Structures are given as C-alpha cells and as structure tokens.
C-alpha cells in the first residue's frame, strides 16, 4: 500500500506532570504504517519538553497564545504555512479549539485540514451547561452552577452540600469542604482562567474515563475506557488501566450517536458504589493518555488523520482489557544553542 505523504502540525507539547496530548498523538501517528509523515510542533513556550524529544518532531515553531486574538494567532499559523506547508493541524488544547473552529474556513481556503467538533458541539458541552446537556442527551450529571463573584459563595449552601467542586472554565478542579475554601479556590481559578467559575456537586465514587473518536455521522470509530490507578497532585493520571466496562462503552456510543460527535473526545465520569454513572466533563479533544488506546489496539490518532483526509475508517471495537500505562520523568540533555535558536528565531 502506498503511504500517504503529508505534513501534520500538532500543539500540546508539554510533557510535564500535566502533560499535553501532543506527543502521544505524534507517537500514534508515527507508529502508523499508512503515512509518510512530517510532523511540525507548534509550541507556546520554548521549554515545552516535546520540542526536545528525539524522533518526535521534525520542526518546531513558536506560536502566540490564543489570547492574542484570532487574527494575530492565525497570522502566525499562516506565516508558518507559507514557509512550511501544513496539510493537517491537530489542536490538542481546550483553550485553542474555539480559535481553530472559527478559522476553519480560512484554514480550509489554504488547504489546511482540521478534524474538530462543530462550534455547537463545543458550546453545548461547556462545563456551565452540563446540566442541560445531561437532560438533552439522557445522561446523569451532577448539579452545577456558574458563579462570577465571591458574593455568590454564601448562597451556595442553599443549593449544594459540602464538599463540592470548584472548577475553572477550561482547566483546574478543586474540592472545597467549606465556604472559605470555595472563596480561596474561586480566587485562584478566576485569576488563572477567568470567570465564570463552576461549582459542581461532588459525586462519591470512582473516576473512570473514556477516550473516543466520532465520525460526525453518529458512528463511534474508537472508544476505550480507562481507570486512573495513580493520580498526581494536579489530578492527572500517572498510571491507568483499560477496562472492559460495557456500560461505559454504551454511554459513549449513545452520546456520539445522539450528538453526531465529530473528532476526538474524552468523557470523564464517576461510577458510584450503586453502579450509577455521572458525566462530570467532556473534553472535546484527544486526551494525553491516548497512547494507552494505541497500546491496547486502537490507534485513535491514526484514525483521526484518516478521517480528516476523507478516508473511510471502519469502527474499531476490539481492544485489550487490562493494558496499563505508567508515566515517568526523564532528563533530556539538550544544547543551549537549540534553546537560543528557538527563542531568537521562533523555530527549531
């Protein structure tokens, strides 16, 4: 079979204890025998470890944060594209998805493909709209409320029991056992991610997650459930294991069917001791632990690239249960000249 020659750009190259999905996505793509691929890394900071990992990226460009505005952000992407033509961009961070979706026409006009959910799909699963979402798609969700000021905190006890969760719009979640802790967490989160801050009912149980890929017509192309075995102080999985939980798979398939989800997604759910499943969050992109899915038999990054190229991809239903991942830290040795080059010229 002839390999498909293409250049793919990815973001999310931070391989720290709060890893981005970029490098796991690259690993999946590189392991595919379908592509003759050149990978461009799009980095926000010049010390994102993925930049320096041997064999991961062929080229790296620094880009500004999406907060600079859509125009300036896309100007930089187009500048890179002019110099180093890109066929497909896989954005891997929540905060940049809106910008890429809004720019789909512009990107398409320059022959840059993306494979992302629609703006409506992105919007309706926002954390502050989760309750409506649960009702619409018949999934249990915890009670939630958006607040914009610490003046809203005293009234929370009318609606919520402690402990409760305080969550940022895009990232961060902290458990609060009293009003004072809610205020502290509100201040921390709003300073970093802005408002609203989401208050969510705390559901006791085990957190289970699913990485999945939808083809936009209601078909689940891939889905693998996982339970975190070791969690860092940032709440990130340091180790996890694939599960054979059929209920989780069925919830995922129904959700992808009913929402006609297009692209990668991660469902974060709580399974209670009574075996009820509560959806606590939907991340509208591939999660950082996606390489576990590759290891378990479903190369989701490969499938996403093929779908983006308009190829037919058959749904993958088989995978190995009990497959584990364990993260580790590792010291990469680099040269200051590389750091210098990236800092001064914005590329490496």
């Amino acid at each position, binding site marked *: 079979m002839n390999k498909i020659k293409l250049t793919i750009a990815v973001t999310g190259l931070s391989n720290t204890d709060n890893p981005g999905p970029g490098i796991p996505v690259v690993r999946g793509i590189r392991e595919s025998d379908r592509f003759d691929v050149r990978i461009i890394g799009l980095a926000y900071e010049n010390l994102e470890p993925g930049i320096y990992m041997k064999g991961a990226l062929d080229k790296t460009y620094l880009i500004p944060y999406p907060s600079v505005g859509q125009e300036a952000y896309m100007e930089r992407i187009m500048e890179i594209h002019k110099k180093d033509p890109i066929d497909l961009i896989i954005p891997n961070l929540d905060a940049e998805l809106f910008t890429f979706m809004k720019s789909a026409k512009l990107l398409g006009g320059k022959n840059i493909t993306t494979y992302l959910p629609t703006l409506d799909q992105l919007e309706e699963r926002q954390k502050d709209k989760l309750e409506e979402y649960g009702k619409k798609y018949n999934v249990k969700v915890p009670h939630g409320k958006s607040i914009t000021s610490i003046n809203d905190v005293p009234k929370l006890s009318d609606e919520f029991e402690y402990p409760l969760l305080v969550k940022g719009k895009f990232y961060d979640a902290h458990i609060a056992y009293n009003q004072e802790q809610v205020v502290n967490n509100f201040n921390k989160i709003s300073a970093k991610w802005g408002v609203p801050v989401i208050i969510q009912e705390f559901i006791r149980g*085990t957190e*289970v997650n699913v990485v999945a890929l939808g083809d936009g017509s209601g078909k689940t192309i891939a889905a693998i459930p*996982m*339970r975190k*075995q070791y969690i860092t102080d940032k709440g990130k999985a340091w180790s*996890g*294991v694939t*599960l*054979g*939980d059929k209920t989780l798979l069925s919830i995922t398939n129904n959700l992808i069917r009913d929402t006609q989800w297009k692209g990668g997604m991660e469902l974060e759910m709580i*399974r209670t001791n009574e075996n009820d499943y509560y959806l606590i969050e939907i991340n509208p992109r591939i999660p950082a632990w996606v390489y576990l899915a590759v290891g378990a038999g479903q190369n989701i990054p490969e499938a996403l690239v093929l779908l983006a190229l308009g190829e037919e991809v058959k749904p993958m239903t088989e995978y190995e*249960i*009990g497959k584990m991942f364990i993260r580790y830290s590792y010291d990469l040795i680099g040269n200051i000249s590389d750091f210098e080059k990236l800092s001064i010229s914005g590329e490496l």
Partner: protein
Amino acid sequence: MKLKENIAVSESGFLFDSNSGESFSVNSSGKEILKLLSEDIEIAAIEKSLLEKYDIDSPTFNRYMDDFAHTLRRFNLIEFEEDE
C-alpha cells in the same frame, strides 16, 4: 455463590476486575477456592475437596470460608444466586 464474569484470576493468585480496574492478591488456599468457584463448583463440593486435601475440620473450614466470602462480596467479586 460464583465468581463474577469480569474477574480474571491468574495462576499467581492475582485478581483483576476488568470493570472497575481494581486488582487484588490472594494466598494459595484463596487461589484454590477461587479456581473452583470460577468452574462453578458448589461450596459443598469445595468443602469436600479441601477437607480431603488439608488437615482441617468442617466447622473451621466454614468459619474461614464465611470470612473469605464476606471479603469477596465486599469487593464486589462474587455474586450469589439471590443477587441475580
């Protein structure tokens, strides 16, 4: 009483619950009982088999078996006919 379908027991006495992702380990006698349970063998037959093999009387076996069954049930590893 039978071992749930989603529980895998290895030769080393390692149990993996493929639904919850939990894992456990049991000693050699626990492993032997679980192996028999996974073959759908009744408790009475398990008792007979172990009494023949080991120097243990019926009341002692039943006391330990009750404890073991209680632990297995607490961790959601077995089901009883009345649960179904």
